[in-house]
């Protein structure tokens, strides 16, 4: 009997001891973090008092794809408590109506509103990092011309046209006739190394939007603002004309085709080799494109795939390094700009080699890239691969493009990036242009020259 009581007592004590206080003492030592985003305006253009309240701040956890959005308070702060450590993209934006902008600045505004953006990408935040993030809103470049559609992915390599059918569509987003004459198109050069050797000092390492990109200010002969006030071109093309040769009506666009043929039909290359198209629905008819990239007359080693459509005017080849045709990087490691300038680009713009060539002697015989001032850029788009793990250092600062976009299925998918329609005035569609490609673009499942979304 005594033994029975003893056993019962031991059991009861064990139960109470074991389960009585649950597991509150087992908390992990790595708690979630608190992040404070502090937003201000870039005052380099003037000390205006733009509103600090109501700035939309979007925090995207790249590891689990969760997105948190908040509006700033009256001091420009947005506070996120209890979020996970990880790799983050943080964006801030505010759109100010024309009347408010003109009241604040006293300056006339040609558009209905203006958007300020700021972005920091790939920020690693954890319990050991400084989690007060300062974002400086920059006035974005808003132009009459916008890049409307980019078909960089190409179509199926055997059933479609591979990357021969790539094209760019540029749109007159204004309410007046524009002339395409002397409009430049450039593909930008940059480092694609995701984790460069930062000990060399040749790469940007400020945790900002250009993190891990070449630090062009370290290039031989570069100015201190070479990385932030310029972009670097690997190809530059110009629309020909005398200034009024190619009028473009409001709400219409021009197509710049890599090869201006009907890609839905069997294709014959420059040396007469024919390739069938097994599934015409995968590709596009570019025979009616407005302009064509044709380099056969401009370079000594053209590609056999680069054929000319005599009825479509060719773009002027201003400069090109390596590329032998319009070949947009179809995994998506690309950035493009359109710009206008009265300068003679090929002779008046400076050229820089990458920063790993540190002396004049080093740069001899090396690729040197034309330096395009951000100030002449009308529109710019940063493209990235679909998977975060494959994304490369950006080539555009926030004032040119605060975001980035990719077609979801990626290369050879027949998908194209298409700028969203913001509003329709009469029959004219006004496309969304907040200077943030993440927000401004959607995609077509099949590229659709001239289409809207």
């Amino acid at each position, binding site marked *: 009997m005594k033994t029975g009581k003893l056993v019962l007592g031991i059991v009861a004590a064990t139960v109470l001891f*074991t389960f009585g206080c*649950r*597991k509150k003492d087992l908390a*992990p030592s*790595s708690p979630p973090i608190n992040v404070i985003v502090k937003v201000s305006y870039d005052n380099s253009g003037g000390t205006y008092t733009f509103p600090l309240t109501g700035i939309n701040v979007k925090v995207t956890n790249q590891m689990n794809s969760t997105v948190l959005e908040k509006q700033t308070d009256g001091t420009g702060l947005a506070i996120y408590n*209890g979020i*996970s450590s990880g790799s983050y993209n943080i964006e801030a934006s505010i759109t100010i109506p024309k009347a408010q902008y003109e009241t604040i600045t006293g300056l006339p505004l040609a558009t209905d509103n203006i958007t300020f953006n700021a972005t920091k990408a790939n920020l690693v935040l*954890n319990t050991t990092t400084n989690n007060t993030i300062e974002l400086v809103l920059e006035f974005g470049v808003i132009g009459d011309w916008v890049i409307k559609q980019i078909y960089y992915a190409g179509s199926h390599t055997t059933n479609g046209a591979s990357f021969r059918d790539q094209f760019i569509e540029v749109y007159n987003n204004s309410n007046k006739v524009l002339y395409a004459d002397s409009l430049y198109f450039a593909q930008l050069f940059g480092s694609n190394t995701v984790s460069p050797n930062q000990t060399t000092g040749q790469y940007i390492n400020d945790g900002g939007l250009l993190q891990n990109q070449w630090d062009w200010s370290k290039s031989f002969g570069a100015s201190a603002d070479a990385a932030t006030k310029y972009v670097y071109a690997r190809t530059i093309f110009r629309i020909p004309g005398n200034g009024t040769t190619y009028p473009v009506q409001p709400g219409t666009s021009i197509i710049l085709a890599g090869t201006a043929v009907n890609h839905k039909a069997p294709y014959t290359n420059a040396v007469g080799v024919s390739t069938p198209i097994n599934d015409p629905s995968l590709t596009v008819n570019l025979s009616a494109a407005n302009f064509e990239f044709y380099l056969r007359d401009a370079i000594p080693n053209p590609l056999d795939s680069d054929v000319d459509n005599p009825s479509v005017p060719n773009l002027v080849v201003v400069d090109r390094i390596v590329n032998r045709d319009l070949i947009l990087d179809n995994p998506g490691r690309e950035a493009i700009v359109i710009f206008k300038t009265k300068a003679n680009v090929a002779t008046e713009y400076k050229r820089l080699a990458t920063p790993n060539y540190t002396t004049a002697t080093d740069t001899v015989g090396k690729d040197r890239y034309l330096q395009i001032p951000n100030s002449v850029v009308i529109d710019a788009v940063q493209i990235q691969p679909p998977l975060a793990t494959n994304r490369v250092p950006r080539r555009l600062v926030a004032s040119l493009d605060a975001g980035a976009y990719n077609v979801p299925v990626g290369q050879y998918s027949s998908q194209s990036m298409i700028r969203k329609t913001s509003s329709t005035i009469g029959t004219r569609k006004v496309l969304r242009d907040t200077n943030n490609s993440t927000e401004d673009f959607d995609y077509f499942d099949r590229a659709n020259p001239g289409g809207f979304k």
Partner: protein
Amino acid sequence: MIRTRFCYLLLTLAGMFNSRWLQAQDTASANAVFAEQFHRRYDFFAGGIATQPLTGISNYMTLNAGYRQTGGAYRQAQEAPRQRDLSFFTEGMRRTGKYLVSGSFVYTHTLQDSVSYTLRYGLTNPQPYYFFAYRKGNWQVGQYRLQGSVSRAFLREKLHAGLSVKYNTINAWRSNDPRPEQFSYNMHIDAGLLYRFLPKHAAGVSGSIIRTNTENTVEYRNKDYQMSLAFPEYVTRIQYGYGFEDRISTAPLKSNTTGYGWQAVYKGSFAFGEVAVKGGYTSLESKIEGAATALLPTGKYGEFYEDSWNAALYWDYQRQRNRFSLLAEYTNHLGRDFNQFLQANNYVYSFEQLRLQPLFTHIKDNKPRYELGLDLRLSDLFRADGNAGTLADYLQAQAGVSAAWFAHFPGRQLLKTTIAAAYRQSIDPLYTSPVQQSVFISSVIAHDYYYFSADTWRADLSLLYSIPVKKVNAFIRLQAGYEKATIPAGTVQAAALPGDQRWYWQAGAGVSL
């Protein structure tokens, strides 16, 4: 190579329990092996090398093959909605002179349908680092478990020294994109001593070393699924805890585990019966590595440290035709990781259980007539991910009753009918919902909150028919079970709720001595 090794070991086992041994008749009555009392005692003592000489059974062997099917929507989010298992099992014990040899071998081939949110086989594996994808897929799993123990008596049966080896492997793969393949092996070597310091009292200790290696790879037949965000359900991700995750390439994930443990046992015979107490500790350290990522450039993801304590008491008492036993077991399993990205402990796992199983058997003419049992459990499952901000603590109490009736027919035929019922009550489930609700959190963790918070009823029925065939007892066994859950209403936002029913049935046949 591995399979060849297994075949060799299987043949060795079969040889150990050969027909010559089957002639030995110093076991309990032939039908006693179908009584729960027998298995309870065998499992308690034969499982450890220090306790093996205390089993009190000289010759025993069973061999059976079976098929089991499980289904129903009351399941955890990472559990298979439907599962089929084909298994072969044999175990036995034999005394040869001063040597006592025991062992077991199990092979199970499992087919699982539509398993989602995990690319790892092993639902109850506490280790937090594993690949997952949202996409459902069908698994095929082959598992081998081999255990062999040998002990020798010294000093006129006063001292026993023994060695035991356990070797388990799992080879699991999925036949849909993403296609993981997992291979893991586990080896557990024990050495033990048992000393009978008084005629009716013995104590022993054993020590063990443990090695486990697991490698998991993921491949795609359709590469578009691998790279594209248009199909997010196919993208391979890695789980670092209980909600802390990242997207990742399909590089292998390797886990190397080393560990050690010890067990101590005491057994004494008293007027009120036979009492055995045992307890022990196991320590495991796992290192998890994979390909270098942007956040983890060294490819070292983390470590996982586990401490397991266990204690058990077994009381066995026979008075005339009635036999009583009580099995009380306590386990405490605590795991903590060290996450290399966070440079801190991020994940905590704890499972604690206390289980009491009194059992009464009525015996007549040296044959079991009926058995009545209780099964009382109190368990607590705790998981927390500091970085994700998730915390779940599920305390559950279960009470079950079982009754078995043995009908003996001429010619030593036996029909055993067992019915059992159990009720499980969830007690004040705790769940902390994080600020950031990822798909994994809403689809797995929140879903499982409702699973573990449910109160359930279950009923089981088992029929066993045995008939002597030559010198062994051949048997067939049919079993079925049904569980009905009451899913609570709650404010936790889950992508989906578990269903309210789960069932299984199984059929098997074999021989026993």
